[in-house]
């Protein structure tokens, strides 16, 4: 017996309404997170004192920091990245580059450029892939290079933790550039709340389109190509909106692997970076929340809006596909590894708000959104969904997306104002509109694929094709 057309129509409309409700709720929550982020940012900026910060730089009381840079096949950018790291404005820090079994010339370049010789530096006991050698520079620079068998980014970070001796460690991607004062900004919460802050993360921005001279971004501009421009909008939305608000609620679940500072003891006590996931940054932060909440310890995991880490974003669809698939897998793996925290009273803000938000909107979001698109198109073709509901779905999914992206640009303009030209602002606004027509849907599909791969337990990192900062950005 086939179901009656009325029943099919009714069920279809009910499904479509639930999609509309879901997408509206997701956008509304994100919008209010952005509003919260906006007020929090303004309050934070009123408290800033640039003169005092300059004085802080002379203080011997600033904690020491070890910057750990895992590198895998980074021959094109490694020398410039390390040089830029060695030139930061911070009185007490050292740089530890971990060559994670690169197959290209990364190690040779490091040895030649920085005059490395073998060192007898003692290594800690956290388990990692075998270490071939530890090097130090003959020059008067605080650089240590660890050459080890390939074991993935988390394994390389653990090797760096083994070699580091400072109370704070900064995990920085070797394809990223830090602003000169970034380290001081990101260390400030540790000195404002001594013994309480476990980790801090900073804003990551897109370097494509900017002018880079000797490892420093000297002129900020929006990318000339469409793909990096769309990603610029995504980065603004994620960092200025979501993370500021989650940090305000002490429910920040992700400190970007591109730039984060951790209390070394806290990381070691938590068991180091997990090698079983590609989302080691998120997994570690969620684990820290879990441990501290379970032990009822006072703690803070903080997002700092000022420090800027510039990163090269993919300019090819293939590499972007791989990256987004990996990010989504990382999210799924981290959430699944800590599913017990979900709606558990013991885990407070992260358990009641951040994790459910991530599960419902970040993990399941792509599936729901994709189902909505497919069902709406099929519904119109087969005549089971009315045009009115189809238009409504379009309004909530696309128009709200446009408005969220534009809100991110407005937030940037009202708070940080890093893009000086009006032309850049207009380009960003145009991208905020255009990314919702095709690009966002494609990302949704890739994220859905990532969720599927994550649930299947697919492993692997995928290669990122580097062009070098000065090729990708404008050559000075």
């Amino acid at each position, binding site marked *: 017996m086939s179901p009656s057309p009325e029943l099919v129509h009714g069920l279809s409309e009910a499904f479509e309404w639930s999609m509309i409700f879901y997408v509206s709720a997701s956008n509304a929550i994100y919008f209010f997170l952005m509003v919260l982020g906006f007020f929090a940012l303004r309050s934070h900026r009123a408290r800033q004192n640039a003169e005092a910060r300059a004085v802080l730089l002379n203080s011997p*009381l600033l904690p020491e920091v070890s910057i750990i840079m895992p590198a895998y096949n980074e021959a094109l950018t490694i020398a410039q990245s390390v040089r830029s790291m060695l030139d930061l404005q911070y009185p007490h820090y050292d740089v530890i580059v971990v060559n994670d079994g690169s197959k290209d010339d990364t190690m040779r370049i490091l040895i030649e450029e920085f005059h490395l010789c073998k060192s007898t530096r003692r290594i800690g006991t956290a388990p990692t892939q075998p270490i071939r050698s530890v090097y130090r520079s003959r020059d008067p620079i605080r650089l240590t290079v660890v050459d080890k068998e390939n074991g993935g980014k988390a394994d390389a970070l653990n090797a760096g933790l083994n070699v580091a001796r400072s109370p704070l460690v900064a995990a920085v991607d070797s394809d990223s550039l830090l602003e000169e004062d970034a380290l001081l900004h990101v260390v400030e919460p540790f000195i404002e709340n001594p013994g309480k802050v476990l980790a801090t993360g900073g804003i990551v921005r897109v370097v494509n389109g900017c002018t880079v001279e000797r490892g420093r971004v000297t002129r900020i501009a929006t990318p000339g190509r469409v793909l990096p421009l769309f990603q610029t909008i995504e980065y603004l939305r994620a960092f200025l909106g979501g993370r500021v608000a989650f940090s305000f609620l002490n429910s920040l679940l992700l400190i970007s692997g591109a730039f984060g500072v951790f209390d070394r003891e806290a990381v070691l006590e938590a068991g180091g970076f997990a090698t079983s996931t590609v989302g080691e940054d998120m997994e570690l932060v969620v684990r820290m929340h879990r441990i501290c909440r379970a032990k009822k310890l006072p703690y803070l995991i903080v997002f700092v809006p000022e420090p800027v880490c510039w990163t090269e974003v993919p300019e090819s669809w293939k590499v972007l596909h791989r990256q987004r698939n990996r990010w989504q897998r990382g999210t799924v793996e981290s959430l699944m590894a800590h599913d017990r925290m979900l709606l558990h009273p013991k885990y407070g803000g992260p358990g009641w708000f951040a994790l459910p938000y991530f599960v419902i909107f970040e993990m399941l979001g792509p599936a729901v959104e994709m189902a909505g698109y497919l069902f709406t198109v099929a519904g119109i073709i087969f005549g089971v969904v009315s045009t009115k509901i189809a238009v409504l779905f379009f*309004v909530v999914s696309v128009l709200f997306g446009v408005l969220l992206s534009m809100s991110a640009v407005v937030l940037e303009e009202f708070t940080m104002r890093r893009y000086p030209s009006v032309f850049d602002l207009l380009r960003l606004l145009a991208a905020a509109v255009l990314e919702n027509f095709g690009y966002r849907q494609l990302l949704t599909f890739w994220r859905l694929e990532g969720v599927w791969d994550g649930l299947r337990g697919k492993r692997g990192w995928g290669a990122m094709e580097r062009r070098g900062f000065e090729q990708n950005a404008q050559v000075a």
Partner: protein
Amino acid sequence: MTLERADRIVVLSKTLAFGMAYVLAIVSFHRFYLLPRLSSRELSLAMSVAFVQCATITVLLLFSFSRKMARQYRESRASRVSPAIREFLGRHASGADHLQDIRDIRVAYPAEVEQCLVEFLRMVRGEGRERLARLVCDLGLVRQWQRRFHSRNLARRKKAVADLALVPREFAGDILQQAMSDPDESVRLHTARHMVSNLQPGELAQVFALVVNGSLVTRMVLAEDLRPYALELAQQVIPAVLQGGETHSTRAALDVLRAWGKFLPLPQVYPLLRHPDAGVRAAALLVLPLVPRLPELEAEVLHALTDPVEPVRAMAVRIAAKFGVSNAVPELVRSLRDPDAQIAVAAAQALAQLGPVGCRILEREMITGSLLAASAALEALQHLQTAPAQTVAV
């Protein structure tokens, strides 16, 4: 980004207020405008949300653009009139009477005159400064700054403090004293920094009280500002804090001494080596090289080498090396075999600092010691070989 409780409440209240206004706007637009025009209730609601959001963003964008334009206009206006204002101010500071001219300019360009005056007050010293300070009073700017200090806006309060600190205290009134009790620590820090730049009798102790009672950031910043007054503070203020018995203040004072890195006559540090708080003991060990060497030094360092708390022991190991405490060798060897890597490494470096005696022990330990002791010994010896001029960092 960490905000204080009061700020968090303000941020949450503003977000809630915005949320309520936003929902009200959507409902009103839906109910009174779109619903009568559209057949579908749901479509009307969705379009209302989209419209209100669009309108909000448009308003914000327009506001943002107009602010940018206004800033540019102000800057160009200032660059046009500032030379003339500076000319008058320069002449006035050097003795000529241009009060009326400046008053006249101020009618049309109040912000520019104020800005130039503040710049001049920062640069000019002596009689010229006094004349400019009187001019500030005559123009009514002091009253304006005093009013500004009572603003709820943090940035305005800080600006008011910075400006008032430039004029003599008899003109500024007790605003700076009030600012030292401001509920916001960043305002107190800001005030203290300005007080230090133009200190009055009795204010040094007041600023130091903020150093020892404030947060670590406040301590770090003010420690640098107070560096020129180290000897003056070491006469009465610091000894009183060190002998006061209050753990937080004692530790803060020791931190300041370490930050200064100056040799100061403070024998009051020695009793703190037996303080019940481990943090104070470790901090006292750190500043030991900066105070006069007393006969009980060796005994105190040897005692610290057996401290139950690991970081204190590690610090004691470094200090023993720094002072070349030869009686400490057995304790250093024991520390080299300590399972805690931090202590083992510090002990190895300390032994390396002791010269041939220590090096022989390290060589022996490389062959017969545990993996940790051997690797620490090897590293210390290599460090000694490659960097003979460097001393162990304390």
